């Protein structure tokens, strides 16, 4: 399985739809401070059903919607779409899995898997079946805390006994 395409609309600093195609191997993302690199990282975490304000660097989920700039008004909703190439791991989903997540300022949400409506829980179940996502997002800020933190808890959680 691999990520084929990510498209972001109205998410954090992305008021216009932006598409990133991904291939096998290593994709590097560069850019100045504050340009939106970690916002892309957050969008991928969010599309897999992450709801934690501290992981998503916001105080409430509404902060994920583009809040405007000096020249643009704020957006009314955000939509992130991720297309995965399914190389046989989860055959019931077909050759591609398209996950879509939308959140409106009115606090409503829409979730889709392969264009058919579903619940957040279905996306989170899919993420669990893909597996290993809890250690697939490594960020510099959190790394330093590991050595001083509670390492045993990492084992308890990963063994499912926390």
């Amino acid at each position: 399985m691999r990520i084929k395409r990510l498209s972001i609309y109205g998410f954090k600093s992305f008021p216009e739809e932006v598409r990133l195609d991904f291939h096998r191997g290593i994709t590097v993302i560069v850019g100045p401070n504050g340009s939106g690199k970690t916002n892309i990282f957050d969008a991928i975490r969010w599309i897999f059903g992450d709801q934690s304000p501290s992981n998503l660097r916001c105080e409430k989920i509404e902060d994920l919607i583009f809040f405007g700039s000096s020249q643009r008004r704020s957006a009314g909703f955000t939509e992130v779409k991720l297309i995965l190439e399914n190389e046989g791991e989860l055959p019931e989903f077909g050759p591609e899995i398209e996950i879509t997540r939308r959140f409106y300022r009115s606090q409503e949400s829409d979730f889709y898997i392969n264009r058919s409506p579903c619940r957040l829980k279905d996306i989170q179940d899919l993420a669990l079946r893909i597996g290993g996502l809890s250690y697939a997002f490594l960020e510099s800020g959190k790394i330093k805390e590991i050595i001083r933190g509670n390492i045993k808890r990492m084992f308890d959680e990963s063994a499912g006994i926390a």
Partner: protein
Amino acid sequence: AINRLIEKIQAVNLEFGLVFESVFGGGSGKVRLVDPDHPLESPVEIVAALEGKRIKRLSQLSGGEQSLLALTLLFAFYRVNPAPFLILDEVDAPLDDSNIQRLCGFLKELAQKIQIIIITHNPLTIRIGDYLYGVTMEEPGVSKVVAVDFRDAARIME
């Protein structure tokens, strides 16, 4: 429950040792229960032997050494139950050039099996990419993404 925990520690410890050797380029590392008789209550400790140094406590390691050790543990957990991709956000920031080169060697090898996405400011890390995206804010407050040729990488970073 106890068996699952012990199995997990053994599996992570095995990977930890392998990753340690390739990113530290020497020495050896272990993860183990402090009190193996009481697995559920016992804390887990990391034992790191760096070439020629007598480390008693992890807090005596340098900033870069601690970051590399934490990364080694995270990679070990990842390899025990790997997702199809791995996303790294500026994990190379505290590292010196030779540690970055070893880290990049490790990632290049991992990328033969899985997809890796790396956010970085460091030219040594950019070099291992197969594809490059530049994120810019030409219009203040509005992010755009462009696919970039490696030759132009320095320009986008400004």
